[in-house]
C-alpha cells in the first residue's frame, strides 16, 4: 500500500524501538540539524521531532521514547504506545529499529508493531557491531517472514540511510500475524484486532488484558525462536570480553567507587569553576548591553523597564547556559557510553535507603553548583517517584548562589576572631552549612519516601548495555536541546517573575520616588567632589528602595519575621533575593547605601555598626546572623529553580510544595535558632 495520499502535505514517520537500539543516532542521521524538542501533552516526556526532504516529498519524523513492548510499564512507554495508536495525528509509516547484535529480544516489539497493521519498515541497526561479532542475519529470510522491507543500517557511518529513505516510500502493511489469536478469542472476545487489544489497555475495564499479555508474549517468543533459528547465524559463545573486563573495573568494590567519585569530581570542577569564565563573560556582556541601551533610549519608565526589567531578566536566564551545557555534556557522554547504568548499579543499594535512585547522585552533587541544571538532569531517572523526590530535595543542597550570602554573614560573625590552631572558624562554619544542606536533603528524601504515593510500580529491572564510544552528534544534539528547552520553557517564567520584581523595587504608591529624587537633585549637583556625590546618590537609592512597593512589603512583613530576629531591611532583601540568593548582598548594599556592591568590606562594617532601632543593641548579633544563615541554607529563595521544577514536572503542584516545605523548614529552623541563642 502506498501511504502517500495525493493531497497530504507531508508523510508522518515514527521511529519506535527498545531503549539502546540506537534510535536517536538513526534519528540524527535522518534529520541532521532539522530537529526540535517539544513535549507530549500532560506528561514530562520530551518529544523529539524533525524533518527531511526526499525526492520532492517532505517527511516529518518523530523519535518516540524507547519501549520494550506495546504493554507499557512506565510513563515513557505509555507515551510511545499512545503516539503510535493516535488517530487524530496519525502516523503514516512506522520504522521499527532493532539492535542487530541483540536481535531476539528486540524482535518482541517488532512482532507487536507489525500486528498493528500499519505500513512498516524494519531497520537492523548497528549492523557493523553485529558483523564484528560474527553475527550473520539473513535479511531476505527476515523480509519474507515479516513481510515488510528490512534495511541494514550503520547509523554512525550513515551506511544504509539512503536505502532506508527509499524503503519508507515502499513501506507496506504486513500480511503476517503474530499475536495469540486463540487467547484473544478466549480472554478478549470483543477485541477483534491486535490494535483493539492494545487500545483496550487504556480503557477503564481492562479485565483479562494482563492474562492475555502473558500468554501473548510467550506465544510471540515461540514464533521468534523459530524466526531466529531461520534468519540468524551467530557463534555459540558471543565475545563479550571487553564488556566483561570493563564491568570488572567499573563495578569493582574499590575501583568502581573510586572511578565514580573521580567522575563526580571532574563534573563538579567543570560546572563550578570552568563554567565561571563563560558566566562572567555573559554577565559583562549584558552589563554593557544594559549600559548602552540605558543611554541610547530616551530616559523614562520604558527605558527602565527594558534595562532593569527585561534585560536584567534575560541576563538572569542566559547565565545558566554554561552550567546546563557542561552538565549535559557529561551526562550525555556517560549515558551514551553505557557507564551511567553501571553507576546506577553500584549505588542503588545505598541510595534506595533514602528513597532515591542510583541515578540521583549526579543531580545531587551537581546541585552544589546550581539546582537548575541538576533538576533538568533528573530526566535520566526513569522511576517517577524516585525522580520527584530527587527534584524536590535537590535545592536543599547549598548552591554557589548561597556562597556570597554565607561569606558575608560568617565574616560578620567571626570578625577579628583568631583561628583555633589549624582550623579556621569561618571555614568550619562554611563547611558546616554545606553539610547541613546535604543532611537536610537526605532527611527530606526519607520523609518523602513514606509520604509520596504512587500508582507506578517501582522496580529496578534494567538493561546494562554494552560499552560504546560516545556519538558526538547525539551528544551535541542533546546538549543543544536541553539549552533550548531551558531558554524557552523555564526562561518565560523567569522573565515574568523578574519583571514583577523589577516593578516592586522601582515603583511606589503616588509620587514618592520622584519626590525623593527631587530632594536629592540639588544636593547631588552641588556636591563639591565625586566621593560626596556617590555617597549622596547611594543614600538616594536607599531611600527610594525603602519607599518602593518592595520596601512597603518588607515593612509589612516585619511582624512575621521579627521572631526570627529579622527587621524590615532584611525583609526587603528576602523579597529581592527571590530572584537569586546572591541578590541579598546587593540589596543590603543598597539599603545601607554602602555604594559598590562588589565591595562587601564597607557593607560588613556598616552592618556591624548597625544598631537595632528599638533595643539599641547591635542589629547583627550572633543570634541574628545564625538565624539568617540557617534561613538561607533551607529557604527556597530561587525563582529559576521553581520555574525549572515546573518545566520538569509539568505541574504547579510540585514547585508549590517545594516552596512551602523549604520556606517552612527555613522559618521553623531560624525561629528555633534565634530563640535559643538570644
Amino acid at each position, binding site marked *: 500500500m502506498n501511504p502517500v495520499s495525493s493531497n497530504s502535505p507531508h508523510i508522518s514517520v515514527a521511529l519506535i524501538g527498545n531503549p539502546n537500539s540506537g534510535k536517536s543516532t538513526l534519528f540524527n542521521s535522518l534529520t541532521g540539524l532539522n530537529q526540535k524538542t517539544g513535549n507530549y501533552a500532560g506528561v514530562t516526556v520530551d518529544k523529539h521531532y524533525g524533518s527531511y526532504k526526499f525526492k520532492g516529498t517532505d517527511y516529518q519524523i518523530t523519535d518516540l521514547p524507547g519501549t*520494550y*513492548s506495546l*504493554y507499557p*510499564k512506565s510513563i515513557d512507554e505509555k507515551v510511545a504506545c499512545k503516539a503510535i495508536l493516535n488517530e487524530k495525528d496519525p502516523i503514516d509509516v512506522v520504522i521499527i529499529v532493532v539492535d542487530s*547484535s*541483540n536481535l*531476539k*529480544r528486540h524482535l*518482541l516489539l517488532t512482532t507487536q508493531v507489525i500486528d498493528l497493521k500499519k505500513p512498516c519498515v524494519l531497520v537492523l541497526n548497528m549492523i557493523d557491531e553485529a558483523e564484528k561479532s560474527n553475527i550473520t542475519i539473513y535479511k531476505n529470510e527476515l523480509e519474507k517472514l515479516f513481510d515488510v522491507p528490512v534495511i541494514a543500517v550503520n547509523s554512525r557511518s550513515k551506511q544504509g540511510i539512503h536505502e532506508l529513505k527509499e524503503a519508507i516510500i515502499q513501506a507496506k502493511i504486513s500480511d503476517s500475524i503474530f499475536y495469540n489469536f486463540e487467547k484473544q478469542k478466549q480472554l478478549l472476545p470483543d477485541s477483534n484486532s491486535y490494535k483493539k487489544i492494545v487500545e483496550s489497555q487504556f480503557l477503564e475495564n481492562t479485565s483479562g488484558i*494482563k492474562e492475555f*499479555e*502473558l500468554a501473548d*508474549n*510467550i506465544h510471540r*517468543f515461540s514464533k521468534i525462536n523459530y524466526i531466529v533459528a531461520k534468519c540468524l547465524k*551467530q557463534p*555459540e*559463545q*558471543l565475545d*563479550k570480553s571487553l*564488556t*566483561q573486563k570493563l*564491568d570488572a573495573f567499573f*563495578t*569493582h*568494590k574499590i575501583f*568502581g*567507587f573510586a572511578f565514580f567519585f573521580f567522575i563526580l569530581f571532574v563534573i563538579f570542577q567543570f560546572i563550578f569553576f570552568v563554567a565561571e569564565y563563560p558566566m562572567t563573560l555573559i554577565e559583562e556582556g549584558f552589563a554593557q548591553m544594559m549600559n548602552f541601551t540605558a543611554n541610547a533610549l530616551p530616559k523614562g519608565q520604558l527605558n527602565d523597564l527594558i534595562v532593569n526589567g527585561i534585560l536584567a531578566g534575560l541576563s538572569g536566564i542566559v547565565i545558566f547556559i554554561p552550567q546546563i551545557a557542561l552538565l549535559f555534556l557529561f551526562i550525555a557522554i556517560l549515558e551514551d557510553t553505557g557507564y551511567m*547504568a553501571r553507576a546506577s*548499579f*553500584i549505588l*542503588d*543499594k*545505598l541510595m534506595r535507603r533514602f528513597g532515591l535512585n542510583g541515578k540521583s547522585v549526579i543531580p545531587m552533587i551537581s546541585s552544589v553548583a546550581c539546582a537548575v541544571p541538576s533538576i533538568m538532569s533528573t530526566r535520566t531517572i526513569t522511576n517517577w517517584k524516585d525522580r520527584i523526590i530527587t527534584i524536590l530535595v535537590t535545592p536543599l543542597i547549598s548552591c554557589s548562589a548561597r556562597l556570597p550570602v554565607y561569606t558575608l554573614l560568617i565574616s560578620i560573625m567571626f570578625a577579628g576572631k583568631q583561628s583555633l590552631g589549624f582550623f579556621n572558624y569561618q571555614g568550619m562554619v562554611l563547611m558546616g552549612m554545606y553539610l547541613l544542606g546535604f543532611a537536610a536533603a537526605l532527611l527530606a528524601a526519607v520523609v518523602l519516601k513514606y509520604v509520596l504515593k504512587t500508582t507506578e*510500580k517501582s*522496580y*529496578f*529491572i*534494567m*538493561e*546494562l*548495555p*554494552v560499552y560504546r564510544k560516545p556519538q558526538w552528534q547525539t551528544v551535541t544534539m542533546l546538549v543543544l536541546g536541553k539549552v533550548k528547552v531551558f531558554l524557552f520553557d523555564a526562561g518565560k517564567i523567569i522573565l515574568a517573575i523578574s519583571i514583577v520584581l523589577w516593578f516592586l523595587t522601582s515603583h511606589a504608591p503616588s509620587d514618592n520616588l520622584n519626590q525623593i529624587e527631587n530632594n536629592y537633585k540639588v544636593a547631588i549637583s552641588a556636591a563639591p567632589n565625586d566621593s560626596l556625590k556617590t555617597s549622596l546618590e547611594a543614600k538616594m537609592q536607599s531611600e527610594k528602595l525603602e519607599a518602593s512597593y518592595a520596601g512597603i512589603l518588607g515593612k509589612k512583613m516585619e511582624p512575621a519575621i521579627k521572631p526570627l530576629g529579622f527587621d524590615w531591611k532584611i525583609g526587603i532583601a528576602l523579597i529581592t533575593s527571590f530572584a537569586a540568593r546572591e541578590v541579598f548582598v546587593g540589596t543590603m548594599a543598597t539599603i545601607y547605601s554602602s555604594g559598590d556592591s562588589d565591595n562587601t568590606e564597607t557593607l560588613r562594617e556598616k552592618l556591624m555598626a548597625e544598631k537595632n532601632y528599638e533595643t539599641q543593641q547591635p542589629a547583627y548579633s550572633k543570634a541574628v546572623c545564625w538565624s539568617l544563615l540557617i534561613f538561607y541554607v533551607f529557604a527556597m529563595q530561587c525563582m529559576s529553580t521553581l520555574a525549572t521544577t515546573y518545566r520538569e514536572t509539568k505541574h504547579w503542584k510540585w514547585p508549590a510544595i517545594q516552596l512551602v516545605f523549604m520556606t517552612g523548614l527555613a522559618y521553623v529552623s531560624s525561629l528555633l535558632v534565634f530563640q535559643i541563642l538570644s
Partner: protein
Amino acid sequence: MQTLDTLTLGQTATIIDFTDDFLSLKFIEMGCLPGEKIKLSNIAPLGDPIAIEVSGYLLSLRKKEAATIVVKVIPENTVESCVI
C-alpha cells in the same frame, strides 16, 4: 524451590517459573522466559543488585526482584555452552 537470588557468582540456571504477576510480565518482555538459560554474571559491590546474562545481554535487577524467579541450577559439568 530455588530462586535466582540464591545463585552464586558464575552459576548457570534455567528459569522455571515466576511468583509475582506484575514482575513476570516485565521479565518476559525482557527475554526472561521459562526454559531460558541464565547466568549470574555480576553482583554489585554492596551485595545488591545483581546482573544476569540472559538471551545474549546483561540485565540488572534487585535481589528482592530476583527472589520472584524460580530457577533450576544447571550442574557445572553439564553446561556445554554458555547462554546466547
